[in-house]
């Protein structure tokens, strides 16, 4: 039995799921998820399925629960002591909210990139090698390979290959963010969660990261939170629109942006509020 | 290299430590001795000297793992010997020099430079009734006498109390201190002060203090290395000073015994430098022989 989840399952009252895509398998399946910060409910009865090798965008106005949801997917949200959760999140079929589920295992399979680039105050090399090292890989040769591969994967190898031993804080904001992506790639995750990864970046860096995301989806499943509708439209396959902690609409990105079924979605993407 | 059984004079390198505490009177003598020993004889032996006072020192000497030597400005008491017996500690008395109990006054004090033995005793006796200098002699200033001395930790206090005052109460309000340096300082700054302590502390501070010349009946005698002697002019206030050796330690630790012998062999020389009167050569030789005798055992 789970202690993390409260078992007062609620009946789904809203939220329209996209037609199941039978060709691709489901990575994350969220069922009746509710989340409270103390007394305030931040997530209400969320039902969402994330598919393999797709980019899923999460959009919505500030405070609607986007970050909260994405942080629940790798249980990072538990770092806030007042959080209570009910419902289920199945990752590859297993309920990650279950008491017996090891978060560290989950997090080695689920990489995360944050809104503000947050490299460690270490060298570029050490930043990328951090994950493999804590998971026990010590062999210098293998580490070198991993670091190169990850930096290439994050499209930053050419810019930093000559200064791997310099401090990561010497990089520009955009480079730092790609370094953080490289750091996430270094443990070869299954899914990558990105919380507004470009909001602190200039337009050129943003473009680079967007291209990178397109590239990465070949190998990974990506969930990206963004406040930028254009970005969501450009790079994602599916889009979920959150409002006040609820999923108002979840559908193929094309559909959401061309023909939303909910009035509120339409209002939001046309810039009428938010 | 514990070449303990070789003759120390044979130049054997010794090491280890020698721990000495006790008399503050003897401290300058012993400190000098220790320094000479470590500079000239055995560089690798660590001799540490403290100055808790004779009585306080005996309390550290007569315990399990106590000090190796206890300096004393009075001879060991019966109860202290009994304590040693109880512990199974064999104690060897080393008489190292002679000291004269010296009474000192402030440099500005120009009236009490000579006093009779009786006057001094009355000044320090509770029953003496001498509160003001004018009580001592009418032509002295009418100012309160300030009496100073070492506290009860010290052999000097006990010598004063037992031998000079005849075990009668000392004046109320005598300012008794732990440190001789403090006494010297206090007297040098207090015009009406009179204090007692070993001659050595006067001898090294003649620029700050005046010694009272004592009239024992045959005219005033100035305390000095010459007059301080068991049959000298200052004999009344002369006392031997000692260092007591823990013989058990001396047998276990060659450096302790070696230091004891060194001390006796150089006693007269160091005594001279630190303001003590020397002992007769024969007396010294006898002690050295006794110590050498311990070596074989």
């Amino acid at each position, binding site marked *: 039995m789970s202690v993390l989840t409260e078992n007062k399952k609620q009946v789904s009252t809203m939220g329209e799921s996209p037609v199941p895509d039978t060709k691709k398998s489901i990575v994350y399946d969220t069922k009746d998820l509710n989340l409270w910060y103390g007394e305030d409910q931040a997530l209400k009865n969320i039902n969402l399925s994330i598919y393999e090798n797709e980019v899923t965008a999460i959009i919505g106005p500030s405070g609607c629960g986007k970050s909260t949801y994405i942080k629940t997917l*790798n249980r*990072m949200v538990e*770092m806030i002591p007042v959080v209570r959760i009910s419902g289920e999140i199945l990752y590859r079929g297993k309920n990650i909210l279950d008491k017996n589920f090891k978060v*560290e*295992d*989950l*997090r*080695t*399979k689920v*990489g*995360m990139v*944050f809104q*503000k680039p*947050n*490299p*460690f*105050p*270490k060298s570029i090399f050490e930043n990328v090698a*951090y*994950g493999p*090292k*804590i*998971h026990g890989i010590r062999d210098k040769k293998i580490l070198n390979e991993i670091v190169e591969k990850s930096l290439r994967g994050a499209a930053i190898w050419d810019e930093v290959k000559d200064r791997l031993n310099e401090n990561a*804080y010497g990089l520009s904001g955009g480079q730092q963010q790609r370094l*953080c992506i490289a*750091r*996430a790639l270094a*443990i070869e995750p299954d899914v990558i969660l990105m919380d507004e990864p470009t909001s602190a970046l200039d337009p050129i860096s943003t473009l680079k990261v967007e291209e990178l995301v397109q590239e990465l989806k070949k190998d990974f499943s990506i969930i990206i939170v963004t406040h930028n509708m254009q970005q969501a439209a450009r790079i994602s396959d599916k889009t979920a629109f959150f409002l006040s902690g609820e999923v108002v609409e979840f559908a193929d990105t094309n559909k959401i942006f061309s023909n939303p079924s909910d009035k509120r979605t339409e209002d939001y993407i046309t810039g009428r509020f938010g | 290299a514990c070449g303990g059984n070789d003759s120390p004079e044979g130049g054997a390198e010794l090491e280890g*430590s020698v*721990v000495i*505490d006790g008399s503050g009177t003897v*401290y*300058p003598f012993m*400190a*000098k001795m*220790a*320094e000479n020993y*470590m500079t000239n004889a055995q560089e*690798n*032996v*660590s*001799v*540490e*000297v*403290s*100055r808790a006072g004779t009585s306080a020192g005996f309390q550290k000497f007569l315990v399990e793992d106590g000090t190796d030597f206890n300096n004393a400005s009075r001879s060991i008491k019966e109860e202290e010997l009994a304590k040693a017996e109880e512990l199974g500690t064999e104690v060897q008395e080393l008489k190292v020099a002679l000291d004269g109990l010296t009474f000192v006054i402030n440099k500005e004090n120009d009236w009490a430079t000579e006093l009779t033995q009786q006057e001094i005793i009355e000044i320090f006796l509770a029953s003496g009734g001498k509160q003001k200098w004018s009580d001592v002699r009418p032509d002295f200033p009418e100012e309160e006498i300030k009496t100073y001395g070492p506290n009860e930790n010290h052999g000097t206090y006990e010598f004063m109390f037992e031998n000079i005052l005849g075990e009668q109460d000392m004046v109320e309000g005598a300012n008794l201190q732990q*440190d*001789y*340096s*403090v006494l*010297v*300082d206090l007297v*040098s700054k207090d015009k009406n002060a009179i204090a007692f302590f070993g001659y050595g*502390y006067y001898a*090294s*501070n003649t620029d*700050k203090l005046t010694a009272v010349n004592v009239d024992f009946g045959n005219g005033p005698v100035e305390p000095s290395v010459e007059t301080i002697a068991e049959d000298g002019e200052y004999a009344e206030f002369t006392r031997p000073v000692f260092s007591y050796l823990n013989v058990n330690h001396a047998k276990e630790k060659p450096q302790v015994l070696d230091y004891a012998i060194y001390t006796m062999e150089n006693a007269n020389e160091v005594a001279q430098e630190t303001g003590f009167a020397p002992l007769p050569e024969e007396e010294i030789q006898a002690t050295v022989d006794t110590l050498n005798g311990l070596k074989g055992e």
Partner: protein
Amino acid sequence: MKYVDNNQVQKKMGSRLFLNMLAKSLFLLATLFGLIVLVILIYRVFRDGAGWINFDFITNKLSTEPERAGIMGAILGTFWLMLVVAPVTMLLGVGTAIYLEEYAKKGRLQSLFQTNIANLAGVPSVVFGLLGLTVFVRGLDLGNIVLAGGLTMALLVLPVVVVSAQEAIRAVPQFLREASYGMGATKWQTIKNVVLPASIPGILTGTILALSRAIGETAPLVVIGIPALLIPLPDGIFDKFTILPVQIYYWTLDSALVSEYMNLAAATILILLLVLFIMNSIAILIRNKFQRRF
């Protein structure tokens, strides 16, 4: 009806402003008082001691003769003492700080620890001396050797290290921890690999400040017993020892006997102040050099 008479107010304004100026000068004077004392103190020590500092004074062993006396013994004693205090107090201080900041749940236990540390910081140093005498010198029968003195001192400065380490750890931004957890790192891995390296400058600064407090402490070591005359140089933490402040203490006391001892004390004070100055400069340097960039 008017209550506030403008003329009255204006008339009084002059004296009120004058009072303000007067008070300001007084406050400035009070502030400068500390500065003046500092200048006098340093001037006096310099005047009495500077002429006595030379190579021999630093490298010679202790002696009863002022001309020959040196402070090598006290310097080495201080050095060995710090060699005990630094690691012990670092280990205990940082360990405690990590526990309180990263592991302990907010609540009774944590506030008990916190209150205890605040109180410990206020316990007079002689009382620590007595603790050291009873527990280390006598209880564990170490005798008055460097190790016993070092352990006593380590406990004495422990609160300083704990508090500064706590501050340093608290200053590590949460997002660095999140980054590490996000890679699947465990709590201890995160602390070891991210939190500690990022807080090390703060911890070091705090430790140096604690050590400079320890270097100047006299009372606890006098209480655990340091001989008035100890000539040989200590070779390690199991030797008997003396330290700079204790040397100053005995020389000041005995300056009544040998007036040059006062100069020796002053010279030793200069050396001690120099050591403190260097240590604090290093602390400031570390603080500036590693000023957090996150």
